[in-house]
């Protein structure tokens, strides 16, 4: 492993040991073939960084697997030789999750990109890790089916997003994308192939993780540190023909929270989201600029879909009731509004090239984007946002914040997308400091970051109960006795 202009970590073995590199490469070639593995520096270099502030680090090898058997053989070998393995699909996360902390083998899964089955009757799709949102959207649409597409690049992996508790455009209706997983196939760090959920009992039954013990939890939210997920079953959903998006704006986060809470009680939205003025801009202003006087500070879009006009009318009636109730509240600033067209398109026409961590997120910053991305109780959104705003503006960064209500308990996503100029180490560090500061505020208020970079994992662990951390360590050691899978990411 070699570091690129950053913190030096202890290498697993010296990359300069040419004999060792040759012998490892020989074995990797035997497993996946000559064309699918390399130790060439320029190839490794392209995997050494991502969009985030996380310092670049080189893997020692890059391997592309094409079959489950290859992954099994690879992990058996890596486990025996104690070589780290970092699973990689598209590298679109913004938490440095696939930057190899300790070098080793970067396992690129993009060639495993088959949609194995779409059961249009049962509403289950079975996919491999390399299937992109764009590919699945294309295939599902032929059956008039959909999934909770996130606001990431269309090339991003559906599986990686789901197993990492990623979010999507149907979170208010169906929950997180990880809650849509109905079964899994996984290669353990020691090379054994396991299945969890219904497919463990009958090979072609991918419909549910329940009522079995939820062993899928051993692989969700672990950031690729407990195994390589090679297949998942997913709930997919019919596309109702009628779309209605209710949009409001207001002057402060408290009024927006009140409105969202009220509307959320009716559980009728596919997506119930609010964004601050700075996030509603395409692109997010960088560095910070004040919003124009008189412009609302918050916008919300509540996306609903209906099968009939009557159903749509009923949803409209409910929404109008909510709106009127809010109007009756003292001094509310909530009003109906027109959401900026391109931004609304970016939120409802998913997957989208316009959002996708690109045009509206980082275009003005230049190369970099990271976040404090959290799951936070809705009742503390307002105080946390107000503190974040202070922190971010203090760092000359836009408080480009999103709040989204998830299904069930009134909690949801609270995050700020922070663009920065990655060409400048100073500006990158400024963004990192601001983000970590924001994160601490959120953690102290009861929120928890998702897809966390190590800086975040460390902050989580500082606050975690000893029993939780010990259990985490034991489970990790049980599954991965030699700590080869994406080591270092959990901060334990």
């Amino acid at each position, binding site marked *: 492993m070699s570091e690129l202009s950053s913190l030096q970590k202890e290498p697993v073995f010296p990359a300069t040991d040419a004999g060792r590199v040759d012998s490892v490469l020989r074995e990797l070639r035997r497993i996946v073939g000559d064309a699918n593995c390399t130790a060439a520096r320029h190839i490794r*270099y392209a995997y050494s960084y991502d969009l985030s502030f996380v310092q670049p680090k080189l893997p020692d090898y890059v391997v592309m697997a094409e079959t489950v058997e290859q992954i099994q053989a690879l992990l058996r070998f890596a486990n025996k030789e104690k070589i780290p393995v970092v699973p990689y699909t598209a590298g679109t996360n913004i938490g440095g999750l696939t930057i190899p902390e300790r070098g080793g083998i970067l396992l690129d899964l993009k060639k495993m990109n088959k949609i194995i089955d779409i059961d249009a009757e049962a509403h289950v799709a079975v996919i491999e890790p390399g299937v992109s949102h764009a590919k699945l959207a294309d295939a599902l649409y032929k059956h008039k089916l959909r999934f909770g597409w996130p606001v990431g*690049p269309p090339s991003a992996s559906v599986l990686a997003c789901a197993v990492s508790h990623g979010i999507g455009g149907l979170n208010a209706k169906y929950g997180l994308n990880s809650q849509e997983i109905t079964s899994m196939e996984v290669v353990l760090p020691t090379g054994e192939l396991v299945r969890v959920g219904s497919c463990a009992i009958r090979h072609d039954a991918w419909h549910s993780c329940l009522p079995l013990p939820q062993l899928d939890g051993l692989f969700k939210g672990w950031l690729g540190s407990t195994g390589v997920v090679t297949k998942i079953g997913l709930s997919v959903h019919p596309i109702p023909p009628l779309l209605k998006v209710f949009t409001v704006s207001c002057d402060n986060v408290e009024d927006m929270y009140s409105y969202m809470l009220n509307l959320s009680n009716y559980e009728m939205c596919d997506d119930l989201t609010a964004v601050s003025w700075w996030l509603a801009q395409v692109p997010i202003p960088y560095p910070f600029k004040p919003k124009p006087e008189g412009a609302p500070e918050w916008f919300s879009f509540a996306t609903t879909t209906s099968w009939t006009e009557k159903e749509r009318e009923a949803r409209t009636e409910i929404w109008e009731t909510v709106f009127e109730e809010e109007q009756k509240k003292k001094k509310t600033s909530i009003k109906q509004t027109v959401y900026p067209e391109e931004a609304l398109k970016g939120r409802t026409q998913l997957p989208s*090239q316009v959002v996708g961590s690109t045009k509206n997120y980082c275009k003005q910053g230049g190369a970099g984007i990271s976040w404090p991305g959290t799951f936070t109780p809705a009742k503390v959104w307002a105080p946390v946002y107000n503190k974040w705003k202070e922190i971010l503006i203090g760092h000359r960064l836009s408080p480009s914040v999103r709040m989204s209500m998830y299904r069930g308990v009134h909690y949801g996503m609270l995050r700020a997308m922070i663009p920065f100029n990655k060409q400048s180490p100073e500006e990158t560090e400024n963004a990192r400091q601001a983000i970590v500061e924001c994160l601490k505020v959120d953690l102290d208020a009861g929120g928890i970051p998702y897809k966390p970079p190590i800086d975040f994992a460390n902050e989580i662990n500082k606050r975690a109960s000893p029993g939780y951390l010990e259990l985490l360590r034991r489970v990790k050691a049980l599954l991965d006795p030699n700590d080869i899978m994406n080591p270092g990411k959990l901060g334990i």
Partner: protein
Amino acid sequence: MNWKIAELKELEDKIWRCTACGTCKIAYDYGPPPTFGEICPAGTEFGFEGFMASKGKIAFARGILSGELPWEEELLEAIYKCTICAGCQNQCQLDHKPFIPEIIEAMRRKAVQEGAGPMPLHKNLLQSMKNYNNPYQGPRRVRTDWTRPFKKAGKPIKDINKEPAPALFFVGCTGAFNTAARAVPTATASIFQKLGLDFGILGENELCCGSTAMRIGDAEEFKRVATKNLETFKWLHDERGVKTIISSCAGCYRAIKKDYSLSSEYDKVMEGIEVVHTADYLNRLYKEGKLKLKGELPWKVTYHDPCHTGRHLNKFIIDHEGAQLWEGAYLDVDQSECLYEQPRDLLKAIPGIEFVEMKRNRANSFCCGGGGGVMTGFGEWATKNASLRVQEGMDTGAERIVSICPFCHFNLNEGAKRISSQIKVHDLTELIDQVLVASDGD
């Protein structure tokens, strides 16, 4: 004549506009219905992120500029294993979007300047350019071989070196020297004669347009031939009355229209001269009702968009002064010069043709695999990639694939042979020539 051809260092700010988000890696359109397709030939074939679209190439560019990636054989090969098709550029939404092909070519230019590039087979090509003024190692006299049947039929093609004509047919090296692609100039000239167009060719005096040299990073060789060509065009305009340069070659067309505009003298030299692709020229006539088509071609046909007549002709709207967003912000793309509809309109106008689209078309067309010096440098891969495109054509049920680029024409033919496909590959001019009624009623 001064040329404004950027060095890699000059593009550093653009290179740091890429976030590595990977939006460039696949073709996608929301629709509805949504459409998805692989877009990067190198990414499809080689898979590693470095090969993949602009995301990978930008990584190389950063590493080269920072000194973290010294010239090594494998790096060099990876940089040249790109068809510069601009498919990735079409997906990108960031400020470096307008410069993506230029960044890739600038890496190659740096490699050539520093003695590392180009690839060995490219060196043969460049030597041929120097020796023969064409990349095919063909003696000058061979350039006019394709004209013999016209002479034999008593319809010789005018030598514009000797006689004036308002239109120059710029034949291009591929049509002239690559026997498998000779149908392109032959059909083109036949059409022009049927239309009664007063045109001429430069014959043995025609020089390579320089497109391939530019694509593989030899800016000096490009400038040499481009400068001579521009001087010739000026002379033809002043002394031979040339007002229009028509080309049936997508590469020549792109070079003359776009690469030559990097010359400080371009506007002055080209004043009064219009550069037009044959497909566009014929479509104009068709719209004016001057293209009489008779007979029937009872074929199911699909169309392959060459990169050089498609997305390479995008015009990017950039906020140069920062008046709307900030200095250098990419605002929008103007596709009005891309030849997407013209060839399709002509195909649909041919009696009997049943036209079907491939899934990846127009701005999201999948490159045949021959561009960017790949056909010369990595012929086997170019053919393999072409066979993927041929298969896509076959999947539509089409019996014939039509295009408007002799390079694509040749490469797709090779691809069809590779997979023993029965599909036939044609240049659009071949079809038009079969059904065009001569203006004198022939």
